């Protein structure tokens, strides 16, 4: 419990910064959207774009002149920022002890390594929940002038659920890196690599249909806003895949941290 509270406090500044970033981002986006709302000329331009191009920009299936379409586009950026935040929290919360040379202190406390990781993982989880809630709240505020219908609210709810799952994936992978990497410097660098590679994959996949199989390797493609907008629910395959990644990462993280020679 003490470790949990301590970690929450230590990460509070980072959480506040991310919260502010999300608020600013949504507000800027909404300001831009005001130029679009109900503009039919824009729609005809978008209709003329070829499919690959739109998909690369993830604009397919969305009518940009409505709030629903607008939030469909925003989702890619939500997901990207959520993933960065979660991966940084996950890898940093473990590896910072070694970087700051405080890991030996946490080892002399009367708690097992397992409990240390659990407390830290829970602190990361709380951060992710707060991240989603902030994004959700500010989204609800900025759409008020456009008086959206019930369909929009349920779509937004799904979007936030998807954002949360993506965050969980990256948090778990981040924790795994922090726990398993022998050298603390590498865990942050690897996290950056994973974010960049998965993000680029998500773009490349839509450029060429031959590369379709690659979509299983990038969580950004697991939750495609246009897809769950059309279907009204998530794809079960991807939900299971996400759960598998999260569970597997956590299990390996616990196992490796318990047996690891910590850098003092």
């Amino acid at each position, binding site marked *: 419990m003490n470790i949990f509270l301590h970690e929450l406090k230590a990460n509070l500044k*980072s959480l506040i910064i991310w919260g502010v*970033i999300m608020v600013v*981002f949504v507000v*800027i*986006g909404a*300001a*831009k*959207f005001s*130029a*679009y709302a109900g503009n039919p*000329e*824009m729609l*005809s*331009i978008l209709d*003329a*774009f*070829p*499919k*690959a*191009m739109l998909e690369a*920009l993830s*604009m397919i299936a969305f009518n940009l002149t409505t709030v629903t379409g607008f939030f469909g*586009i925003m989702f890619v*950026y939500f997901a*990207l*920022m959520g993933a*960065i935040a979660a991966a*940084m929290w996950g890898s*940093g919360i473990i590896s*910072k002890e070694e*970087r*700051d040379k405080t890991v030996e202190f946490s080892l002399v406390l009367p708690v097992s390594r397992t409990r240390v990781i659990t407390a830290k993982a829970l602190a990361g989880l709380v951060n992710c929940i707060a991240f989603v809630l902030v994004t959700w709240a500010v989204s609800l505020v900025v759409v008020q002038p456009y008086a959206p219908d019930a369909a929009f609210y349920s779509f937004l709810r799904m979007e936030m659920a998807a954002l949360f799952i993506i965050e969980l994936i990256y948090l778990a992978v981040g924790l795994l890196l922090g726990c398993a990497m022998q050298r603390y410097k590498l865990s*942050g*660098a690897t*996290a*950056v*690599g994973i*974010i*960049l590679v998965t993000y*680029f994959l998500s*773009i*490349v996949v839509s*450029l*060429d249909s*031959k*590369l379709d199989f690659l979509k299983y390797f990038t969580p950004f493609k697991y939750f495609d806003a246009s897809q769950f907008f059309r279907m009204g629910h998530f794809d079960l395959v991807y939900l299971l895949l996400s759960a598998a990644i999260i569970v597997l990462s956590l299990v390996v993280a616990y196992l490796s941290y318990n047996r690891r020679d910590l850098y003092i």
Partner: protein
Amino acid sequence: MSATIYKHEFFSRLKSVLVWSVSLMLLVLFFFSIFQSFADQAALLNEMMAQFPPALLEAFGITKTDLSSVLGYFSFLLVFVQLCLAIQAGNYGFGLVSIEETELTADFLLTKPVSRLQIITSKLLVAFSCLLLTDLAVTASTFIAIALLSGGRPYDTGTLGLLLVSMLILQLFFLSVGMVISLLVHRVRSVTPYSLALGFGAYILAAFSGIFGDVKLEYITPFKQIDAAYIVLHNAYDMPLLLVNLAVTVVALLASYALYLRRDIPTAS
């Protein structure tokens, strides 16, 4: 400039340079490997776009980048290369001075018979050489990719040169801005979150402005100041914005020198 520091720093960065260079070379080659099939589709787009009045397209920020041409496609993929380069340069910039302080070696360095001016100059030169090496790797892979995978489509070498040089301008921006931020904040504990936030922040602002119309705010992001699409379209840099970019770089660089020379360096105690 001290040769010892330069050598030491260079070899400690070498692995990172190699990893970034190889990844970026693969990125360029991979993108170009799907160029041919993509180009045919893009040609259709150009025909359709011709139907709309240009003023309208411009108002909504849709650039007339021709993705079926070599340079148009390259400018599209260059954005992703730039994102990587920005993060790499940010890493070096944020870490340049702060890494000695987190690893508690800063005071050791200061006991050496070198001035602070020499220390920071040598370290900057190392970072610069490393970025330049990465640039060369990207340049080499670009020429290889175009030669092998573009199907012999024509392109303008001068414009390609401008695009490739723009990478260096972008890197210098993130290097110097990263460094000045690292000297302004109280303490940089970990470099990656900072460089990620700076790199991705600038990227998202730019990418976002590509989709949504005309808001001047995005001119603060270097990705727009050296917009690859603009360079391809006009065969030149957007001069006023380029000058803004260079001015920020120079000011950040000078400020870093001033701050570092007067900095209160924490000791390992």
